[in-house]
């Protein structure tokens, strides 16, 4: 800890926020709720086929940041996003960008498992049906089965595809939500604390799944569990009061963070 102290600069990001093969790149992003600024001048690249973990204390803006990546914050009238966020070079806040199309390309999994109170099959089929991805019933069946298999849920639910999804266990419900998301073949999956409501075994299964999904998708995950961030991600970004304080290789962040705020957070110290 040579030069770190609490007065260390916080308005520039430590570590390496930029990568060569960026899927999503964020430049000078500010987010406001009415007059209150929630995210300050964030610069970050999310590389193709990587899992990036966003960690930080509650209210640090990491969830807000995540939700801006597929414009879920559009539903909040007082929320305003400034700066440049591009997906494969296209600005997602451009007037030409359809938020519905964007959300089909950038899927989202939420903290609380939220399957629709319909059958397992209907849950997974909903997205493809919405976007007309299947031409006939056979194709739809195929999408449903493949998605459930990818989410590692098929064997557990194959006998009750048509029973109500809310009867599944919490971990199964969350995997169903992941299956539902990957049924529309998004390019990026955003996960907002996907395992926070699950027991350790269900959590381990979800983490295993995230690692598996990395081959085909780019994943950004917000988590409060440092161990989880350390286990599933390749890169980690630490948020503090709406700024990214430090970004880096996960192994480096968790053994030798550069910024004292990061250090304090991941070691459980007073900030």
């Amino acid at each position: 800890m040579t030069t770190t102290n609490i007065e260390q600069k916080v308005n520039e990001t430590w570590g390496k926020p930029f990568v060569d093969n960026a899927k999503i790149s964020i430049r000078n992003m500010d987010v406001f709720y009415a007059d209150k600024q929630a995210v300050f001048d964030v610069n970050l690249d999310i590389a193709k086929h990587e899992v990036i973990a966003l960690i930080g204390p509650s209210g640090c803006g990491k969830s807000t940041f995540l939700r801006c990546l597929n414009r879920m914050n559009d539903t909040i009238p007082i929320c305003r996003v400034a700066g440049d966020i591009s997906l494969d070079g296209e600005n997602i806040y451009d007037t030409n960008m359809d938020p519905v199309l964007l959300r089909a390309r950038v899927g989202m999994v939420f903290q609380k498992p939220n399957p629709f109170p319909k059958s397992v099959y209907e849950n997974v089929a909903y997205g493809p049906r919405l976007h007309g991805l299947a031409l006939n019933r056979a194709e739809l069946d195929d999408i449903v089965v493949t998605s459930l298999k990818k989410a590692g849920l098929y064997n557990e639910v194959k006998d009750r595809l048509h029973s109500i999804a809310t009867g599944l266990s919490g971990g199964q419900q969350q995997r169903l939500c992941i299956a539902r998301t990957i049924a529309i073949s998004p390019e990026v999956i955003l996960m907002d604390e996907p395992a926070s409501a699950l027991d350790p075994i269900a959590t381990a299964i979800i983490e295993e799944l995230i690692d598996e999904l990395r081959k085909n998708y780019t994943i950004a995950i917000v988590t409060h569990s440092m161990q989880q961030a350390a286990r599933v991600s390749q890169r980690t970004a630490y948020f503090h009061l709406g700024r990214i304080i430090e970004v880096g290789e996960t192994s480096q962040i968790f053994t030798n963070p550069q910024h004292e705020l990061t250090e304090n957070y991941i070691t459980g110290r007073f900030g």
Partner: protein
Amino acid sequence: MNNDLSLDSHISRRFNEELEEVRHKVLVMGGLVEKQVADGLTALLNSDSSLGEVVAGADFEINAMEVAIDEQCTHIFARRQPAASDLRLVISVIKTITDLERIGDEAEKLGRYAMPMADKKITPTYFVTLRHLGEHVKVMLHNSLDAFAHNDVDEALTTIASDEQINQEFEAISRQLITQMMENPRDIKKAMQISWCARALERIGDHSKNICEYVVYLVKGKDVRHISLDRLNKRINTD
């Protein structure tokens, strides 16, 4: 330079205490080891066979401490999953106590050699260089423990550098003894014993150097083992 690892600022007070306790125990163990080395050296140089016996018999205490600290570190891993500086601290502690235990073993050897050598008439001139080496090693051990106690990278680096000097002194003693043995084959046995003592002291220097390297790892998060001094300095200075 901020040497404060701020062990007392965890949200969990119990965690603060655990880390502080482990560190404290390491320092206590270090003190014990230092005393063993000093006693062993004294026994050797003063041909004090009874003190040698005491030193040889006291090693179990150090071994017991190593086991105890090891266990405590395992508990910390299991219960706290330390990260960042905490993780580096616990790793450093585990490694440091291994080296301290080895130093204890070397001190035990010194004490053990002191017993047979006290009976034999050995020309005191042999001891002059040995004493010189011994003093150097004692200082080095002390400095490395000091660096650990204060998380002092500068002191650690100076100490690492001083190992080179000890190695040279050991070389000198070895050369001197070889000459002696060639000139005076009847003294070969005595010379061998002195050589072993010198070897033990040189090993203590190596272990002290290891401890200093752990201090660098602990504070800077950089692994500086098994590299030349030049590259070490370069690595330290590139943040």
